[in-house]
């Protein structure tokens, strides 16, 4: 960057042309063609976005005020009936209670992820091996995971055998998936197994972006591991921790794959989303299902709004 060439005639004209073009765009008199260019790049993405996100969302609101069955040509407007039906039928609104299991599980999941991320941020033997083992379950196909845990929880399966090794009487093992009082613990546990690695990798990445010198200084000052966590690590990764809690709330309402594939929502394992898709595609109650989908959307928007208030984001605005 030291030797700047003397301006040649050619480069002078280039600069002049550039300044002209700047002036032209600054004066706001862009030609029609110029104004069209960004839209040429945006037309396909926008068409897809509107067709597959906004049209469905708009339709969903409209269906939610009708008693439409998904097939007939006419839709009868029923006002808020679907919404009142959802909130007055215990077999429907009980799905909220099911999501509480998953919410509690996500808190455990975040705590475990934080614990292991902190451990592995210090010097550890076989660090990459442990990191890989903790993270890998997150990458596995959900249907395969469902098979793995159907086998794991079945009577006389992996879990019962391991408990037998640990000295538990085999006959006293409960029906992990058959007992409605237990099934949601088993499934929420499966969810922790599957998703903990994601939180862990995100936390570990955040911790490792803290400058290393701080730890050394703290260690020289005699700070214990707990003190290092409490006063150094936790405050610096607070944004990602709070984001994880917020996502846990909407995530626990959106639980779907594991209970659907493993049990088809049987034995009291029906979640909000399973209930919604069953109403829509098995019971032909598209109106009622749409009302539930709208309720979920509103809850997610509310939670995100609260998050924006509690944790002001320093980055990410697209413009």
């Amino acid at each position, binding site marked *: 960057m030291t030797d700047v060439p003397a301006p040649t005639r050619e480069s002078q004209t280039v600069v002049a042309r550039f300044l002209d073009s700047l002036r032209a765009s600054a004066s706001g008199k862009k030609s029609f063609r110029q104004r069209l260019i960004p*839209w040429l*790049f945006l037309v396909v*993405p*926008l068409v897809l*976005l509107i067709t597959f996100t906004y049209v469905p969302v708009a339709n969903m609101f409209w269906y939610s005020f009708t008693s439409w069955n998904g097939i007939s040509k006419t839709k009868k407007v029923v006002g808020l009936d679907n919404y009142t039906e959802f909130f007055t039928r215990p077999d429907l609104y009980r799905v909220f209670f099911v999501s509480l299991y998953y919410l509690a599980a996500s808190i455990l999941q975040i705590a475990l992820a934080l614990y292991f991320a902190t451990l592995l941020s210090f010097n550890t033997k076989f660090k990459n091996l442990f990191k890989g083992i903790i993270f890998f379950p997150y*990458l596995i196909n959900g*249907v395969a995971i469902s098979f793995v845990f159907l086998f794991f929880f079945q009577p006389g399966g992996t879990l019962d055998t391991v408990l037998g090794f640990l000295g538990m009487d085999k006959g006293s093992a409960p029906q992990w998936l058959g007992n409605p009082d237990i099934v949601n613990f088993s499934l929420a546990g499966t969810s922790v197994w599957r998703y903990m690695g994601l939180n862990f990798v995100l936390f570990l990445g955040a911790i490792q972006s803290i400058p290393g010198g701080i730890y050394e200084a703290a260690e020289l000052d005699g700070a214990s591991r707990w003190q290092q966590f409490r006063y150094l690590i936790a405050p610096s990764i607070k944004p990602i921790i709070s984001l994880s809690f917020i996502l846990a709330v909407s995530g626990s309402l959106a639980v*779907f794959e594991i209970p659907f594939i493993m049990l088809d929502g049987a034995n009291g394992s029906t979640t909000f989303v399973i209930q919604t898709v069953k109403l829509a595609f098995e019971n032909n109650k598209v109106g009622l299902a*749409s009302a539930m*989908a709208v309720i979920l959307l509103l809850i997610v928007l509310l939670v995100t709004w609260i998050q924006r208030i509690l944790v002001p984001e320093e980055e990410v605005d697209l413009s």
Partner: protein
Amino acid sequence: MRAVTPRSALASTGKYTSLVVWSLVALVPLVVIGLTSLKTPKDYATSGPLELPKSLTFSNFTRAFTDAKMGEAFLNTTFILVISVGGTIIIGTMTAYALDRFQFRFKKLVVALFLVATLVPGVTTQVATFQVVNTLGLYNTRWAPIALFLGTDIVSIYIFVQFMRSIPISLDEAAKLDGANHFRIYRSIIFPLLKPAIATVVIIKGIAVYNEFYIPFLYMPSQDLGVISTSLFRFKGPLGTQWEVLSAGAVIVIIPTLVLFLLLQRWIYNGISAGATK
């Protein structure tokens, strides 16, 4: 360096114990499925889940592969994956180019449309998306999941926009002075420089498409249109309790993921972090 005190030795034991315990929790369910997939039916019936197979058999794999139509499933998944990932890259980079490099009327509105769309929970809106897909005549074709994977991926656009900000605008301007039009700038300057972001998107999108269950389940009920997830899922029905074969099916689905993970670890960690924190 710290001196090894009894207290720190204790802490260190606790640390490795907890790591080993969780490793067992993570691995035992998977290893057991692996063991089961190698057992003969008789062996499976007479042995406990944690016992090693008495003799190795691979017949469960051939049976799972043919009966679950895994060959067809891998082909369908690959087809959908290649077009969805390729399309996502083209659409995502074009959108990011337009949003990052141009000022135009209604830009704020367009940005808001993309932003708000990230909040819409995908699974529930299927109630209404189904009608759209049906009206377009895509139902029960491979184009239904492709259209949905292409049309509802906003995370990729974020990744491209964020990366594009680090590409100096002076490069665009230099090319403009050389007489390149906007499409040329996009194609010969921006697109090649986005390679690291493209790698990230290929990884997170690839994993997502490979693992997606509900969209193919809902939109491609035809037996010939099975993908990895749905073929394995349908396999559960007829076999019920033949766990040695079902396990082999699960192992067939997990192996490609494991191999890619071992090969691309660093890329996958980076991609996942970039994708999840948006």
